[in-house]
């Protein structure tokens, strides 16, 4: 597969993961009878929980890590649903244990729910997979569930894919385990079709979540929604010719704020944002700026890398341009690597 196609596939998986999160949390948030959002259910994306382990004498508790599930849903009666969307597992099954360990962490008592003692009475763990890998992954789980992944909490595997009919849908179906919400469980056993148009509409407001986005995708958002907007706010600059460049100075914080306000899950958990990371993360934005610098389309204005000067230019296909750049860098890097390894011989 060409490097460009790999990027496009990565972007596709990233987008689908957002669609899967949005689709699944809406099963709980949206009241099918009243056709309105429920006010007794709360959903979170990328909420940072504390994993508590009791010491041997069972008195002292230790915070051992901070699991940040792709989604956490707080239901009435102190119940919770926690889960991960993993639409692409590595081809090599040797690495699957790591992926499962991440999900297995959610099988602990987690602290950090937005309620009085920050704990729920009980929660269930959901893993959403892509249809293309679901059978293999489920077999892997079945083979290891006694020795390695013996879940105490209910563990549910859900299949996700897009259907290509006259009208496209996102399809969700339970493949293993049972949700405690019987009604939803019944519907998901048969399979639920969500109109793709609805999800795409929501996706247009939420294009980033707390997983590292493919670099060309993030660069496109920065270019189109931050840099270009700065250029076009000045009417004199609108007449810019294709080959002309304009310098735009930005603070890294401005880029983060703009994308965070425009494209993150911020609105969903706006009243309980205390355990939410700011998305996009600073290191992602810095990496994106570094990429622009690598190809002479930007430069840092300070050593601390808090300000950047970007040379804006009109591209006929912004995403295509950044895929091209990232693909070329990867291909030339691999050539250098090849050259270096040959020279060692």
């Amino acid at each position, binding site marked *: 597969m060409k490097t460009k196609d790999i990027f496009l596939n990565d972007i596709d998986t990233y987008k689908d993961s957002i669609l899967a999160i949005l689709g699944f949390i809406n099963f709980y948030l949206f009241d099918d009878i009243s056709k309105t959002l429920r006010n007794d259910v709360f959903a979170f994306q990328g909420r940072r929980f504390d994993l508590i382990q009791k010491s041997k004498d069972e008195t002292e508790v230790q915070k051992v890590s901070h699991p940040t599930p792709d989604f956490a849903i707080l239901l009435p009666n102190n119940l919770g649903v926690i889960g991960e969307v993993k639409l692409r597992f590595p081809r090599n099954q040797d690495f699957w244990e790591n992926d499962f360990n991440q999900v297995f962490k959610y099988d602990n008592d987690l602290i950090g729910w937005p309620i009085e003692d920050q704990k729920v009475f009980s929660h269930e763990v959901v893993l959403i997979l892509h249809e293309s890998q679901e059978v293999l992954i489920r077999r892997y789980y079945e083979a290891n569930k006694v020795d390695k992944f013996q879940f105490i909490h209910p563990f549910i595997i859900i299949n996700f894919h897009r259907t290509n009919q006259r009208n496209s849908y996102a399809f969700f179906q339970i493949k293993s385990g049972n949700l405690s919400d019987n009604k939803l469980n019944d519907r998901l056993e048969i399979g639920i079709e969500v109109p793709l*148009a609805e999800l795409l*509409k929501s996706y247009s*407001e939420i294009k980033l979540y707390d997983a590292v986005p493919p670099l060309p995708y993030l660069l496109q958002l920065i270019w189109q929604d931050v840099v270009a*907007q700065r*250029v076009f706010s000045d009417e004199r600059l609108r007449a810019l010719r294709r080959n002309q460049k304009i310098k735009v100075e930005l603070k890294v914080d401005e880029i983060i704020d703009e994308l965070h306000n425009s494209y993150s899950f911020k*609105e969903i958990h706006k009243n309980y944002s205390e355990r939410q990371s700011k998305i996009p993360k600073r290191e992602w934005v810095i990496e994106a700026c570094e990429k622009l610098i690598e190809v002479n389309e930007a430069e840092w204005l300070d050593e601390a890398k808090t300000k950047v000067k970007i040379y804006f230019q009109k591209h006929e296909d912004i995403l295509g341009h950044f895929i091209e750049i990232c693909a070329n860098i990867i291909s030339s890097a691999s050539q250098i690597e090849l050259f270096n390894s040959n020279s060692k011989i």
Partner: protein
Amino acid sequence: MILRLDYSLIINDNNMDFINAFYNSKLDRNNFFSRIDSLLSSETLFVYAIPFACEYDFLQLVNNVKSKSLKLIKSADGIHLFSLKHIVKKKNESIEGKFFLYELQDQVNCKFAITMENNQFFHRVLKPFIDSLKPHVITTFITHSKLKELLINFQSVNKFTDLRILRASQKIRFIEPNNTQKIVSEISWPSMSLEEAFNWVAEKNGWFKSLQFEALYGNRVFADVYLTRQGILKTNQGFTNITEAFLKPITKLLYENIQQFKNRGRKERQDLTVRPIMIDFGKEQFDSIEENQKFIFAIKQFCNSSVSVLHGNPYVHISIMDYIDGSSFDVMISNSDRLMIIPQLKASAFSIKRLVNHIFDFYAEGKIRDYIRNT
């Protein structure tokens, strides 16, 4: 046709006094159109009109432009008379003329720019000037079916025996061997009746970009009319009738479009929610991968923009940035009979209209409506 235009130029020059007398007279909404009719019936003249909308007060806009070549001569009763000059540096010549700006009272911000100056002034000075005010100024376009409807109404209201098409500029869509859709321009002199001409262009899978026709009472020609898809009008008679039949309905359409397209940018709302619009084709338009490809090919022709295809099959997701004013959109197709335009952070009415025009011109026409959930 060339002879006819040259002739009109000469006649215009010889009749400058009549026009100047009109320019010097008091501006009055009650008799403005009828006085143009009188001028047209007594002299060999043409009148040109451009319907357009302006996002804010036109006088304020042209003040901001600070053009030395534009001067406001007088204003009264929602009518303004301007003089406009264009200097052609290479030829060391200047082209100068006057035009009226007629403000519509029912449709706020909609106007007609009207001139009785010659062909050269219209095409080389007035029209480029109006175009230069984009994106603050929005011109319109008429769908093929609407154009036919306007012509039929014009004929029936005025009881013309026939509208004979003299000259037609049309765009023809054809499929290339690699399955991409190409649009070519054609000019023809079909000398056909209205019905015949529309059937003829439909058979060729095209649409009229402009039409020149004669309105006939039996063998007598009442008016020679030229009408473009952008609503630009030229006639030698019956300006009042033509305003009622074409300019006013076209401007109403433009006004409705602006009402529908304005305030769509996410930043215009505190919660940054999207306000998508749909183009409904009313049939199974996107029924194959090839059809998606045809659409993608057409949208890639959108000039002065960035078009990025994030997904082409089975659903379509295209990200567009309009380099005229920085508006951006997600265009999605996930249903076979419609497409969804999701305006992003900034999306001006001008830019949405430009994108919709492009889709109608380069791909296919459909009905524009607000997004509704499809179950």
